[in-house]
């Protein structure tokens, strides 16, 4: 048996799981609830400046792209566990949606 090249797919998947578990909930709490409700004061200009900074862009890209990849792979595995098989259609839907999200986030961050 030969060693697998799966790490290339799996490491982004595992990192996406970490980001989705530890960082996304906090970000959703801050940007989705606390800021709109006025509990935390975070002006638009500061958030924009963060997204404008190259390092900020990289962080935001990681926060979107890694969980998107994680979700795609997890959903494909769930389909496999449910006996739907790992066929081309399932792959296209799962990974296609992830690549679409990754492309949109990359484009948006480049335009800012």
């Amino acid at each position: 048996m030969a060693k697998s090249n799966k790490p290339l797919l799996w490491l982004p998947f595992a990192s996406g799981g970490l980001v989705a578990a530890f960082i996304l909930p906090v970000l959703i709490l801050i940007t989705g609830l606390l800021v709109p409700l006025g509990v935390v004061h975070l002006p638009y200009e500061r958030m924009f400046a963060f997204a404008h900074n190259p390092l900020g862009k990289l962080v935001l890209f990681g926060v979107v792209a890694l969980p998107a990849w994680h979700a795609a792979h997890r959903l494909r595995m769930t389909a496999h566990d449910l006996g739907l098989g790992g066929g081309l259609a399932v792959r296209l839907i799962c990974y296609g949606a992830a690549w679409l999200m990754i492309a949109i986030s990359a484009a948006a961050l480049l335009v800012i």
Partner: protein
Amino acid sequence: MNETIALEVLRYNPDTDREPHFQRYAVPYRDEWVVLDALTHIKDQLDATLCFRWSCHMAVCGSCGVMINGEPKLGCHAFLRDYRNGVVRVEPLDHFPIERDLVIVMDDFMAKLSSVEPYLLVDAAKPLGEGEHLQTPAELNLFKQYAQCINCLLCYAACPQYGLNEGFVGPAALALAHRYNLDSRDTGKDRRAEVVASNEGVWECSFVGACSAVCPKGVDPAAAIQQTKVSASLDWFKAFLLPGGRK
């Protein structure tokens, strides 16, 4: 005192039966009886043709694994009192061919177990004169839980991936490979990686975690497999990035 409990046991005799069927037995109910006691009662008192494996009756030998009401359990570890007022359905372990009645064919697992070389591998044996291989309690704790495996195969019966792809090396064999990889006296990690880090090795696992949930010895094969994925990934990148790393 005359209470009985119904056991539905899967019967299959390859010489006479075209397919498996259930047979119902009424067994005396005892608070202190486990399912294995009920099976023994059937064999001794009601039907001597019933076949099942067992040996120690104390969750050490790993022989009496069966499906009890759909869940993989050791027959000696499942009390009748937990199934009182119901029917106890006993079947051979899922995902394995049936040899006869509750006895499964485990050749597939035996081949996989030996493929990961679950024993100490050393590059050069240390001469006896140089003394013992000392190990600190911390080094022992790294792998001790994985050494509790009794090869009962409940984890294989619980694993949906093994059910879908019988090529998967599977939880117990991968956990035992991890046990030796973590042992400070062992140097066989790269050799085991040929099986462990192959497509049919840890990468076939989708981290359902059923293996760890059903283990009667508190082993956590799911964790062993995840830890192996991390170290196999790091090894893969090292081999890819460092000069001369690709073999």
